[in-house]
């Protein structure tokens, strides 16, 4: 039997591509060597959000409830149970994808997929013929040469999500999205958390204003940041780990190395079909074709932000391309979120990016400290910043640091994708009292018409 499509990788790119292909009438298989769901579901977005929420509840118990007049005599938490809950969440999703595959008649080929020819995928020695192949093998964490990962004491995000106990002192190399999220988890659970960041700001893709405000908020929560600092050596002793930097030395009992991720194409057999990665990434054209026309690539192994929803969108687009449709994906409208407390969410260009592109910009902002809903709930940290094109008033970027930013960003994505103007967004009725009113006010601020500031 010959498949129409074999998808290699079952992460948010691969499994979504497989489902869409099947929906469009193609005979589809999806190859996965590990549990279904890839990084996102097993060692990424999902488990980290589970732990982030659990730890946030712990933190609120001590820090927010008293101001609401709620006193808990002696709060405590059960770390094992917390981890167990996280595992249950993950497992339920694994089963969910398996069920979706079954429903859509997608064959799950268990094992390591590798390209044998442009139309043959070998899965642990068994060959499968197919018309098209979608590569969706994702990415893996980068490590430092002098700091071997054991996922116990020297961990990547994978190990950090499965620690056996809360470390006393956690050193985080790299204050990017993954670093500050997992650092937040352990800070809330009682660790002393220190970040060592090579660059001059945290989460470097964020807008300058947002990044600065965000750092201050995290510092207020007790996290320490050492920016412009380069880790040069590590000493892993029995009782502690010492990191040497170009500034000072740091000691901790667990080190989280979160300096970025790289495309994962190991054992994929790219050389057998003549696909040559460029700096690890697989080059593709505007229709996601690799140098072999019937082999497509999506997600973290291709250009663009390494985000689950970006991969999923690409998966859908490729499936529709295979069905002779002409779908599009608008890369400016891919939101990014940091699931700390408060959350950070952004879509479009930062003020600097817009200026670097030669655009004349207008900006507006509004702080949550004077937003009605934020006052009611006591979640006062953060702000909304709007960047618009000065000539056309069309929105270029919307940046939020504040409670529930990940949910508020949805309207911003819709606005950016549809080239809405700041004035149109400002004139859109928003329910009162809501956090999203801050988006409206920030848009009004672009036109110096803000009401509540």
């Amino acid at each position: 039997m010959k498949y129409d499509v074999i998808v290699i990788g079952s992460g948010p790119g691969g499994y979504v591509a497989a489902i869409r292909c099947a929906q469009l009438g193609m005979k589809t298989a999806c190859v996965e060597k590990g549990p279904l769901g890839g990084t996102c579901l097993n060692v990424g977005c999902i488990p980290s959000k589970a732990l982030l929420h659990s730890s946030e509840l712990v933190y609120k118990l001590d820090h927010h409830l008293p101001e609401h007049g709620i006193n808990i005599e002696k709060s405590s938490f059960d770390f094992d149970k917390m981890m167990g809950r996280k595992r249950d969440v993950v497992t339920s999703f694994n089963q969910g994808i398996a069920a979706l595959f079954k429903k859509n008649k997608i064959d799950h080929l268990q094992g390591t997929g590798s390209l044998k020819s442009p139309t043959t995928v070998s899965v642990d020695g068994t060959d499968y013929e197919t018309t098209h192949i979608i590569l969706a093998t994702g990415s893996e964490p980068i490590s430092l040469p002098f700091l071997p990962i054991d996922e116990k004491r020297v961990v990547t995000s994978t190990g950090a999500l499965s620690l056996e106990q809360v470390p006393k002192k956690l050193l985080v190399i790299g204050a990017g999205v993954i670093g500050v999220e997992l650092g937040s988890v352990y800070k809330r659970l009682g660790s002393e958390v220190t970040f060592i960041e090579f660059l001059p700001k945290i989460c470097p893709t964020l807008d300058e204003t947002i990044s600065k405000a965000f750092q201050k908020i995290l510092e207020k929560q007790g996290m320490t940041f050492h920016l412009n600092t380069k880790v040069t050596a590590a000493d892993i002793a029995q009782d502690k780990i010492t990191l040497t930097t170009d500034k000072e030395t740091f000691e901790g009992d667990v080190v989280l190395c979160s300096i970025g991720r790289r495309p994962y194409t190991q054992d994929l057999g790219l050389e057998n079909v003549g696909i040559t990665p460029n700096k690890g990434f697989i080059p593709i054209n505007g229709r996601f074709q690799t140098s072999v026309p019937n082999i497509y690539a999506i997600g973290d192994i291709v250009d663009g932000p390494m985000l689950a929803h970006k991969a999923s969108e690409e998966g859908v687009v490729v499936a529709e391309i295979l069905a002779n449709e002409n779908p599009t994906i608008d890369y400016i409208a891919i939101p990014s979120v940091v699931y700390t407390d408060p959350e950070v969410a952004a879509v479009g260009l930062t003020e600097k990016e817009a200026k670097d592109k030669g655009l004349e910009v207008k900006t507006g902002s509004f702080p949550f400290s004077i937003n009605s809903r934020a006052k009611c709930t006591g979640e006062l940290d953060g702000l909304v910043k709007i960047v618009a094109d000065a000539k056309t008033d069309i929105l270029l970027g919307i940046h939020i640091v504040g409670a529930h930013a990940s949910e508020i960003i949805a309207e911003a994505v819709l606005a950016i994708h549809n080239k809405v103007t700041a004035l149109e967004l400002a004139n859109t009725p928003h329910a009162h009292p809501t956090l999203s009113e801050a988006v409206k006010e920030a848009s009004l601020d672009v036109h110096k018409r803000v009401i509540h500031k």
Partner: protein
Amino acid sequence: MKMEIKVPEAGESVTEATVSQVLKETGSFVKTDDELIELETDKVNQPIYAPADGTLELTVKVDDVVKVGQVIGYVDTEGAAKQAPEAPSAAAPKEEEKAPTTSPEKAAIEGPSARVSIDEHLQKLETPAPAAPPTLTPAPVLPKTKIEEGTVTRRRMTRLRKTIAKRLVAAKNETAMLTTFNEVDMSEIMAIRSREQEGFVKRNGVKLGFMSFFVKAVVAALKEFPDVNSFIDGDEIATFQTYDVCIAVSTEKGLMVPVIRGCDEMSFGQIEQNIAGFATKAREGKISIDDMRGGSFTITNGGVFGSMLSTPILNPPQSAILGMHTIVKRPVVIGDKIEIRPIMYLALSYDHRIVDGREAIQFLVHMKNNLEEPTRMLIDL
């Protein structure tokens, strides 16, 4: 599977179209490439074809305005197997019906890019939105004469008519247009026509008309006065190196201006053949956008309807247009005697921003001389 029917690209400046005719009804069975509906765009009428065999579902009706890329209906190919008259109904096993209706083999390798980069998104930042908050002052409204209902009948402007209206007003508002006149004694051309007609028809299959003489005279004059063959592009004057002459033709649907390309290298016969070809296409409503793209100079002949004299209006971005008129026998002074001669008035409207009066007048005089003595054109005068 449902295949989308989309409004195709129809040229750079075409962004929307009006549904002018529905040729196949929703629910009917259609075959690949059947004409489904006819769209009327700014420039031409264009049929939309079925992308596949199947049952048609249209989501638009006559007079709906649609945009390029818009989905205007579907062809349900599921129905194809069941409804196609020639499909063997019983022979096909059940499973087959559920077989992938999209053939992945055929997956479009070529097609528009699906990946809209940030820079591409930004390039498409469209027409400026109101940057300032709306003011309360009402926009000035043109004074309207109150018209009693019942004293007029109304019909919708076609898209072609709207475009003509828009472009003509633009031509008037955005150029410094004026017209110079002259008259041509047509005796010599008429003599050649009656003398050589039979041989010409035999050789070329079309009649020797007046138009080929005028096209040739225009080319000769354009060569002499290249500024007339130019247009303004920003701060630059761009001069055509081609002699592509547009001929305005009146069709049932409105004015159309097909282009005869490379007139400098054409024989009289080839020019007449081209004109005859466009006349046929115009009658059948088949003049395409490609037929009308470009052109460096336009000739319009109001004479066919009896016009004695008129001031034609420019066809932007071109800088001049020649108006031909009806041939009338007039008393003219030749030497010191009054003679009866067939005379045509010529009008040349031009854009004074780029063409000076002296050149325009000399251009027309040059044409007059060549038309009165066509032999001059043989020796490149």
